[in-house]
């Protein structure tokens, strides 16, 4: 061994190898969601008498365009004495959402919500994953003069990986996805492997049954809320009891749908999804009357909308190279935590295209020498 070490001196040459630094790659995603127009029908009325406002609004249609990104800022690997590898990931996040509610009796409103956030994830390499996300965001109405308000959403959770087939999550979330400002427990459970078939219940985010459909496709049947709270100019005098120039528009739908994710390679994924909006609410809140309110906003109008359908399409781009994660189920789980809690608190889902589907050991029949030449050395031929 000494001779070998003399011939191949232990230099620091291996430290200069430019292997990927991060497990997460810079990721850009975008999606479009649309529901059809519905009349505001009295039979779906809920709460206080909404007749005057309902007659003013006439009908309702909603669509939204979301764009977002996250990128790794810091990745640290820690190798422990017993061979275990743990890691810490600090990610920067950002999102842009244009909510486009359309009412038959008012002018069009394009409501902007934009966020810049940060999240830290620690994977112990054993059983536990800790996740902390802070998403400050701004909200304003781009279509008319309105106030810009800064709010924040946040999630803190602990994920316990009991086995590759089972994990649970407990935590706390401050979120607007139910159309109001909510402080809720985060409770999650997953049964089944992330690279195979699994059922995942993540309150208040989603309930998903996900299954591979070949090497590159993944199908899922899911149930989740889609919602938010947005600043909206009161230029159509929706609320007249106060001098509010800006009111808050809140909405959420509980949607049930089928989603098909196509992962062309490690870098490009697209999805298409369609289904039904089971429960659908529209609310308005007074800005001034909720000024000193730290919990739920109190509405002056709340309407239950009749059931309908939705369409949702989008893409995810992952840029650059990342460290390999084959069979590293702790990192699969880490990726899934990150994708379940989207950047921007819009409850969009980028998919888990960076988790390789389980591959069967089948010999390839279309090999070319150039594909494998660096795996084979001259002496292998003898």
């Amino acid at each position: 061994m000494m001779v070998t070490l003399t011939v191949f001196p232990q230099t620091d040459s291996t430290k200069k190898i430019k292997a990927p630094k991060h497990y997460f790659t810079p990721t850009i995603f975008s999606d479009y969601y649309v529901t059809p127009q519905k009349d505001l029908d009295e039979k779906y009325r809920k709460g206080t008498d909404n007749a005057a406002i309902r007659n003013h609004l006439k009908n309702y249609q909603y669509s939204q365009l979301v764009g977002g990104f996250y990128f790794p800022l810091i990745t640290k690997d820690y190798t422990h004495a017993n061979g275990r590898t743990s890691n810490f990931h600090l990610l920067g996040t950002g999102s842009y959402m244009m909510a486009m509610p359309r009412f038959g009796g008012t002018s069009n409103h394009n409501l902007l919500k934009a966020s810049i956030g940060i999240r830290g994830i620690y994977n112990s390499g054993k059983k536990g994953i800790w996740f902390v996300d802070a998403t400050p965001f701004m909200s304003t109405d781009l279509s008319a003069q309105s106030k810009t308000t800064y709010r924040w959403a946040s999630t803190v959770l602990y994920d316990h990986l009991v086995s590759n087939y089972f994990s649970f999550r407990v935590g706390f979330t401050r979120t607007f996805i139910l159309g109001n400002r909510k402080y809720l427990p985060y409770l999650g459970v997953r049964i089944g492997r992330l690279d195979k078939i699994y059922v995942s219940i993540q309150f208040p985010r989603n309930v998903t049954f996900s299954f591979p459909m070949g090497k590159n496709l993944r199908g899922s049947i899911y149930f989740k809320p889609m919602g938010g709270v947005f600043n909206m100019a009161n230029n159509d005098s929706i609320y007249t009891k106060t001098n509010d120039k800006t009111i808050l528009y809140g909405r959420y739908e509980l949607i049930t749908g089928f989603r098909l994710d196509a992962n062309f390679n490690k870098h490009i994924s697209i999805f298409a999804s369609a289904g039904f909006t089971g429960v659908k609410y529209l609310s308005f809140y007074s800005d001034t009357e909720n000024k000193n309110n730290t919990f739920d906003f109190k509405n002056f109008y709340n309407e239950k909308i009749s059931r309908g359908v939705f369409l949702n399409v989008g893409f995810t781009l992952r840029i650059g190279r990342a460290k390999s994660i084959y069979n590293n189920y702790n990192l699969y789980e880490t990726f899934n935590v990150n994708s379940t809690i989207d950047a921007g608190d819009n409850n969009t889902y980028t998919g888990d295209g960076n988790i390789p589907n389980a591959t069967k050991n089948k010999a390839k029949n279309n090999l070319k020498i150039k594909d494998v030449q660096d795996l084979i050395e001259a002496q292998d031929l003898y």
Partner: protein
Amino acid sequence: MLFALLKVFPQGGTKREKIEALRVAFITQKLNLTADESQKFWPVYNEYQDKIKASRQEFKKQPTIFLTDKEAQDYLDAELLLKQREFSLYKEYYDKIKKTIPIIKVAELRQAEEGFKKELLKQLQGKSND
């Protein structure tokens, strides 16, 4: 539309990605790791493979047509550096991997890696005989 796009894009990543996934499946099958071993072994082995891949990719940047003695010398120096790095990595990760799985499985890992190469060679041989 989704299915039409699938035909346009290369399916399931590059061929190299597929081969890597196959190698992982091959090793997984041969080593028969316990959950605890798997949790410790794969992060270290993936890191080792990433570094090997990166050093080979760096070497591939060398020109393969030599117009001057210097170019030939540079190529040979780069090749020597590659082998030196690979040996250093092999030794470094041999020590690290030993901490994650029993020594018998470390030996089986080497055999599995060689076995996978042989599988690839068989495939290539079959193709050239066709």
